[in-house]
């Protein structure tokens, strides 16, 4: 699943922000290396919500995200949490 999440995240980022495949490194920092500004980060959330078809509830946790790897990990954790909620109720 991690590979699928990574592929979807990088595809969405490249399409929305006109980034190059070579820039899609796990350690790439969103602001410093990819050049996204604060408005872009807001857009990134909307793009990811659209790509994964869910609503990100924990917006505060997004502040901890620094790298692309953090984004993929955050998405994986969110999907996991949603599955847990669905299983419980």
């Amino acid at each position, binding site marked *: 699943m991690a590979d699928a999440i990574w592929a979807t995240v990088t595809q969405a980022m490249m399409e929305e*922000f006109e980034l190059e495949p070579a820039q899609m490194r796990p350690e790439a920092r969103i602001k410093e290396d990819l050049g996204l500004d604060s*408005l872009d980060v807001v857009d990134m959330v909307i793009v990811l919500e659209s790509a994964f078809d869910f609503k990100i509830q924990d917006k505060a946790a997004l502040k901890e995200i620094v790298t692309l790897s953090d984004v993929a990990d955050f998405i994986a954790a969110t999907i996991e949490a949603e599955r847990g909620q669905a299983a419980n109720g």
Partner: protein
Amino acid sequence: MKPAAEAARLIAANIWCWGCLAIISIAALAAAPLWLLAGRLRGWSWARGVREGTWLYARLYLASISPFVRLDIRHAHRVADFAPAVWAVNHQSWLDLYLMSAQPVRNICILIRAWPFRRLFFFGPLMRLAGYVPTEGADFGGILEQCRREIADGAAILGYPEGTRSRDGSLGRFHSGLFKLAVELNRPVIPVVVRHSGRIIPKGSFIFRPGRIEISYEAPVEPGQFAGEALPHGGLRRCVRQDFQRVLHDVV
């Protein structure tokens, strides 16, 4: 052209272009108080007075360097036909700021990064007086409100979506801010495509190279056509960038 003649022309161009810049800038600063007072008598705000004066100053400078820097201007009427609009301009050289006077609209509100307000000798205070908008680290809501007032006052909003000057003339990534403003203001975006200003005097260089600059005011793009998208400003940004790519690749 022979190397010696080419070198002589290069030297002459630099003496002329820098000399004109110094003379016209000093004359403009000396005339500024009187100009601004005359503007007040005509009912202009201070900001309007500075903008009108800046346009005239830039126009005079472009005219003065025309023996070495020729301008090829296309479709400039569009900025007046679709006013007030948001202008997206690609950025290669500090000369681009002077190129804004290559068209008839004088009331222009420029969105600029924060550093020119702090570091540029006398331009900083003038930019503040002109009501230009510093965007770096600024709150989007505040920028939007200021731009809304400017549009209501008939001003054009000019921004450089790449955010910085290109070193090699290639088109950089477009940031979203300018397009988000256009969507919120519901005003068309006019792509202003500049070619070769970076060849005349590139980023980091102090040497003028004689040549020709092309400025093309492309057909306006209405933000309403992207209303159905999840990120309307994203669609607008991509559409405008495609216009830039088309013109930069097609025009010879």
